[in-house]
């Protein structure tokens, strides 16, 4: 056993590192889920005293930070790591040791964040976690208002995980650009790899504003600099610009890996090639570019000029165009297909529906005057949970059911999978549909309790009950994984009759992935192999 543990610690194999990333992401997902459940318990009924306000502040800060930096980002890195080399017919990532470096620095960043619960110092004394919110607006984070070290834990852990993400993104780009197997031109590359290429390129541009902001904040806190110090003429709004210059494209960095999974799963389970593949690639690049120019729609209430408001409102709505194209791509793929509703596909179908609604509320929020009304309300909370839970998390769960057989050689139980799916769907809608209404009725986000009789009582209770269903759904997944690892049905190499190269090798794949380097002639190489009488390359 110690030697097996040692093997995992010193590994530079992209598949093991991919699994480590995803296992870590699932672990932090469970932790952040517990934090969220505690908050919903406190908010289930008015004037609750289950949690004191200072603890509540720490919970929502840690929940948000964890979900974005320690769940969403490692899921992206893990999927990119595990699948990209397999899909492009390579034996490993371009830089295996850089890969291991990226993972461990990320993990230490995550551990550092949670160390604050033991060693951090804040207003409440020793053992205080960060409590400044996940976007940590200045000047709240300055030394005068955030005493002690808890905010520094937040800053440093985000810088560290950022270094890990940058390393992994550079590695992914180099792998996709330089390691494709013979015949795999960019035009024939799987959509998954295309989307990962776009996301990784985005990371190169969006993480530096965050890192720079954090360095400036550290300089302010420790060397007495004045970047965000309003007393010395510094600008608190500048922090908001830097943060959202990262923060808004970050939503797409989190979301595009979900799109990437859906773009592999939906065609296979519809038994049709991707509808409008070039449009899909174009739309992805369009999203990448547009999303970098819309950041200040998070700042409508700051008091920008009217022309800025108009620009950011219109630009934000424009992102809806490439995103809409994608929805039509997926629907067009399903249209007329022989659809199989296995668990991965169920998650993707729910994703289509939920992500559409998330997009529509997004367009609503892009209307500046509407945003002035509902900003920092539960409407916003419901909106971005629809994006990240209803959109991203559903596709990621779909991806787990789809690729788990490849990674382990064992099938996950369909029955438990369907329990997982339906419990999560019910729980998700109970919680987040109702929160839209609470928000429009004026419930602000981040309050630790509320007075009865404002029309929010029932809505909040229903939202909290939804958590029970969601937790039960996730428990089904955990049990499913444990059960399958112990006595799962053998998967074979190609359980879903897939078309991309990862299904051509054994499950789990050997360390070298492919005994002979593959050679491809179309974007569905396995279709060509299975149907030599009617291969794709004749038509591409």
């Amino acid at each position, binding site marked *: 056993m110690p030697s097996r543990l040692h093997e995992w610690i010193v590994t530079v194999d992209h598949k093991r590192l991919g699994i480590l990333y995803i296992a870590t992401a699932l672990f932090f997902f469970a932790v952040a889920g517990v934090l969220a459940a505690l908050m919903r318990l406190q908010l289930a009924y008015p004037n609750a005293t289950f949690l004191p306000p200072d603890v509540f502040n720490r919970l929502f800060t840690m929940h948000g930070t964890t979900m974005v930096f320690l769940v969403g980002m490692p899921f992206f890195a893990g999927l990119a790591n595990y699948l990209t080399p397999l899909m492009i017919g390579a034996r490993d990532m371009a830089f295996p040791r850089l890969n291991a470096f990226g993972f461990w620095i990320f993990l230490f960043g995550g551990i550092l964040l949670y160390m604050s619960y033991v060693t951090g110092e804040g207003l409440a004394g020793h053992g205080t976690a960060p409590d400044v919110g996940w976007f940590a607006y200045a000047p709240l984070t300055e030394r005068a208002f955030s005493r002690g070290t808890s905010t520094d834990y937040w800053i440093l852990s985000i810088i560290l995980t950022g270094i890990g993400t940058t390393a992994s993104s550079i590695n992914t780009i180099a792998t996709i650009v330089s390691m494709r197997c013979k015949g795999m031109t960019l035009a024939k590359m799987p959509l998954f790899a295309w989307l990962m290429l776009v996301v990784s390129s985005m990371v190169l541009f969006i993480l530096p*504003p965050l890192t720079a902001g954090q360095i*400036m904040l550290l*300089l302010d806190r420790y060397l007495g600099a004045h970047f965000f110090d309003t007393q010395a003429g510094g600008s608190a709004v500048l922090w908001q610009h830097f943060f959202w*210059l990262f923060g808004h494209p970050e939503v797409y960095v989190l979301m595009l890996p979900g799109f990437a999974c859906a773009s592999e799963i939906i065609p296979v389970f519809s038994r049709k090639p991707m509808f409008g593949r070039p449009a899909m690639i174009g739309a992805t690049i369009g999203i990448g570019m547009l999303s970098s120019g819309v950041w200040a729609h998070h700042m409508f209430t700051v008091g920008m000029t009217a022309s800025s408001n108009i620009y950011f409102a219109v630009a934000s709505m424009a992102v809806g165009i490439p995103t809409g194209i994608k929805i039509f791509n997926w629907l067009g793929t399903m249209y007329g297909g022989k659809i199989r509703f296995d668990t991965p596909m169920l998650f993707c179908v729910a994703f289509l529906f939920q992500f559409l609604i998330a997009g529509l509320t997004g367009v609503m929020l892009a209307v500046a005057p509407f945003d002035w009304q509902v900003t920092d309300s539960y409407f916003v909370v419901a909106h971005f949970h629809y994006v990240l839970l209803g959109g991203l998390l559903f596709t990621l769960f779909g991806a787990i059911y789809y690729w788990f057989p490849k990674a382990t050689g064992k099938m996950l139980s369909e029955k438990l999978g369907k329990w997982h799916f339906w419990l999560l769907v019910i729980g998700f809608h109970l919680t987040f549909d109702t929160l839209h209404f609470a928000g429009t009725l004026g419930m602000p986000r981040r309050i630790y309790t509320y007075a009865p009789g404002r029309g929010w009582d029932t809505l909040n209770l229903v939202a909290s009950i939804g958590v029970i269903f969601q937790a039960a759904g996730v428990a089904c997944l955990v049990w499913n994984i444990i059960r399958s690892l112990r006595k799962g049905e053998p998967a074979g190499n*190609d359980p879903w009759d897939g078309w991309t190269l990862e299904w051509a090798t054994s499950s789990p794949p050997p360390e070298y992935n*492919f005994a002979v380097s593959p*050679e491809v002639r179309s974007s569905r190489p396995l279709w060509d192999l299975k149907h030599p009488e009617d291969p794709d390359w004749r038509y591409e």
Partner: protein
Amino acid sequence: MTPTVSLEQTGAIRQSEWVLPDRSRVAVLCLFTTEFTLFSIFVVAYIFYIGKSLSGPTPSQVLELPVWATICLLSSSITVAVAERALKGEQMQRFQLWTGATILLGLEFLRNTAVEWTHLIRDFHLTISTNLFGTTFYSLVGLHASHVVIGLTLLLVTLILGLRGSMRGQSRRFELLAWYWHFVDAVWVAVFTVVYVIGR
């Protein structure tokens, strides 16, 4: 379950016909992209805060054009290119000589920065906490200087490896280091323009 498919080589494409970009070059270009963005943010902060300090000293009162330092740093781009060419041609002594020259020019640049900073701190009492000018000046110039330090460390390592005779045949790797050094120089041109020309 569908039967397992096996991948076979059709041999339709010869290996010599399938050439993709070098992975190290791709990675280093990606690194430059992200570093460039990082510097841009500090430059934006610098420009945003020009003239917004609530107290003195101001840039025009205290800053002098670092002409000599700039000449040193920019000419070190030439020396590193000569060293690179020497390594490609396996002229090891020439390589060591010109790498050494690059390091000396880089050190001279850093010495000038140190003299400038000491002058600002001692004679004008300008520190990072004095005003917004101090804050943005020291962080932007300091960020660049830290990159010079990283580059010098790497160059020093290659020089030591060269003296021990292990740099033969490593010209592909040294090329990337030379790229990095050119990048640091190019960033200095931007920093120089913003801090000493526009902001003064």
